[in-house]
């Protein structure tokens, strides 16, 4: 637990809180990008410890939450094909598509497997030569390198019964979509620490400059989050708007060159549909033409009608920071984790699930 417990130290937390109360003179609205940060804020009870002028809103950085219904329908369709072993990270299984979730499909007989690494899916393909193994390649920039490597490895090993259903999303275009919205309320950002571990921090410089907004790359433990908030508020109070790095123990300015090389080898930047937000230009990764035999969409020639999200789900407003989960009329009654209207109530990183699980009337 080294490198974790130090950042849960109550004394350090107290110190940052004290400093935060000292520097805060005005109301500020900050958005934490990553769902992991949202959960840590709520799970540790931090939201109620902050100065009352600081309003934290919860960003779009939950890969499960932003994956569109149409992509989930593609996943469900693939999982139900004969002789397909459909592999996914665990979180995606409970998210509803337009008709059902992967968990339901599994219960009804589809061969759906939870894996931790796409490289295990390649091995599964080797071990099951008569089956088609498909990996559900979701996530932000964080999971893209491993998913890309699985394709590189499959190609190198001559594995032909492996493919991925890519639904990667990218943070900077989503931030621009939020900042470019005329109703934008966000004064400063906590950027997602693990995304920056891969991509570095340089792509945030032009955003900070263009929108005059401080961006602090921040970790996930209580002391990380408070220090990130403190750095952001300090900039806001001073009127500066730089990119700063709170999570320097993990994030280098230039990122992880090998990981980025793997991404660029396999993926092209493409437009992507975000659940609740709509299509954002150049905000995702799709498998490159050179690797098209590993692109499940092409391999299985998937052609499904585009479906809409449940109109009662306000996930778009939540992920753009316009509303808090508790402001949704369906929250906690028509929408609960056991019968969700939208993904933010299902995912372990979803803002609605965090509020429902940890914050319901403490």
């Amino acid at each position: 637990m080294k490198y974790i417990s130090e950042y849960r130290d109550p004394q350090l937390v107290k110190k940052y809180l004290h400093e935060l109360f000292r520097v805060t003179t005005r109301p500020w609205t900050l958005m934490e990008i990553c769902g992991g940060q949202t959960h840590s804020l709520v799970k540790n009870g931090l939201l109620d410890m902050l100065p009352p002028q600081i309003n934290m809103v919860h960003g779009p950085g939950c890969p499960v939450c932003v994956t569109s219904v149409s992509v989930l329908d593609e996943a469900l369709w693939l999982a139900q094909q004969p002789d397909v072993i459909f592999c996914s990270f665990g979180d995606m299984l409970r998210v509803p598509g337009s008709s059902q979730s992967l968990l339901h499909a599994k219960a009804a007989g589809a061969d759906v497997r939870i894996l931790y690494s796409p490289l295990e899916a390649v091995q599964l393909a080797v071990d099951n030569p008569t089956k088609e193994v498909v990996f559900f390649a979701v996530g932000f920039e964080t999971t893209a390198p491993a998913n890309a490597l699985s394709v590189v490895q499959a190609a190198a090993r001559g594995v032909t019964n492996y493919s991925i259903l890519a639904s990667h999303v990218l943070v900077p275009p989503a931030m621009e979509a939020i900042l470019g919205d005329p109703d934008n309320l966000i004064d400063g950002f906590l950027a997602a620490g693990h995304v920056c571990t891969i991509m570095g921090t340089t792509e945030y410089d032009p955003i900070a400059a263009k929108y005059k907004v401080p961006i602090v790359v921040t970790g996930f433990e209580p002391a990380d989050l408070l220090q990130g908030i403190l750095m952001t508020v300090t900039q806001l109070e001073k009127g500066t708007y730089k990119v700063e790095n709170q999570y320097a123990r993990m994030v280098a300015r230039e990122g992880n060159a090998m990981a980025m090389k793997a991404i660029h080898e396999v993926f092209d930047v493409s437009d992507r549909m975000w659940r609740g937000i709509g299509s954002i230009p150049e905000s995702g990764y799709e498998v490159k033409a050179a690797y098209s035999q590993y692109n499940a969409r092409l391999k299985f020639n998937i052609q499904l009608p585009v479906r809409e999200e449940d109109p009662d789900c306000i996930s778009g407003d939540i992920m753009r920071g316009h509303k808090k989960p508790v402001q949704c009329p369906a929250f906690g009654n028509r929408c609960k984790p056991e019968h969700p209207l939208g993904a933010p109530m299902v995912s372990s990183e979803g803002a609605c699930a965090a509020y429902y699980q940890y914050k319901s009337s403490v």
Partner: protein
Amino acid sequence: MNLNCPLPTNGVSRIITLGHGSGGLLTHQLLQTEVFDLLHNDWLDQQHDGATFSLNGKVAFSTDSYVVSPLFFPGGNIGDLAINGTVNDLAMCGAMARYLSLSFIIEEGLELCLFREVLRHIKAAAQAAGVAIVTGDTKVVERGKGDQLFINTSGIGHIHPRAQIHHNRIVPGDVVIVSGEIAAHGMAIMSVRKGLEFETEVCSDTRPLHEMVGKLLDCFGEQVKFLRDPTRGGLASVLNEMTEATKLGVMMEENSLPLNEQVAAACEMLGLDPLYVANEGIMVAIVSEAVAPTVLGALKGMKGGEQAAIIGRVTKEHAGKVVLESRIGGHRVVNFLPGEQLPRIC
């Protein structure tokens, strides 16, 4: 543990087939050579349809089915669970298990040596828990219609004369104690589950709790108001069931939760909350405030209770809810888990 199958002897199958469940000669042979010879006692030796015995006084009766995969995992196996689980369910009622039934549903193709190994563990666990297996059943299902081996055990036992265990006796101010480190069993299973394997030395905590309960009741009797073993759903679910039933609250301190560092690290890595992870060898006890420190001291002196800790208190406030004070002093609700805990993406 030796799981190597010996070479087949003449005429004896190395695997269990549908024929072993037919009720004919193969069934007879299987039961005789594998079950009765090993587990024999006065009741089983009669090979009757049921067991007859006398019981005086108040008894508790419980049943549970065991479907764990894989059958063998670090620190235990399905046989240990099948005995300890039902012994513990009875212990939580304040009863010492005396007689157990033992039923197998076997998927055809199960290697006989695995079955034999499970039976050996069943025998050892039953001896350790001082319980007699007095009746049972064996069925074989077609391949694909089971998962190697399912076991059901039911048990009956005498209630301790001083036991008054009921949630309606809990009052605000009562103290919540856990008898050992949480989440070990679930993480041990997770570490060997296909597709999720990771390297760790975490072992299941499976053990019988009847002696611990017996000693507590001997010493503290009616001051022990509530006992539960937090198996599936973990500590959080047991406490939520209690608060829901009593309309009282629980305030729990994260700092006080006994949690092995390796288990904590494994949970951290997989994105699982140890409060919801299964246990098989610890219990939650809610006791009067006056005796809580002495109960804790007594537990710490018992085998399997060395890591016992006071983790919280029953409150009038936030009725029906379990609230946790985080390490840094924040508060959050600990709810029922809406479904299975699923490993996260990143």
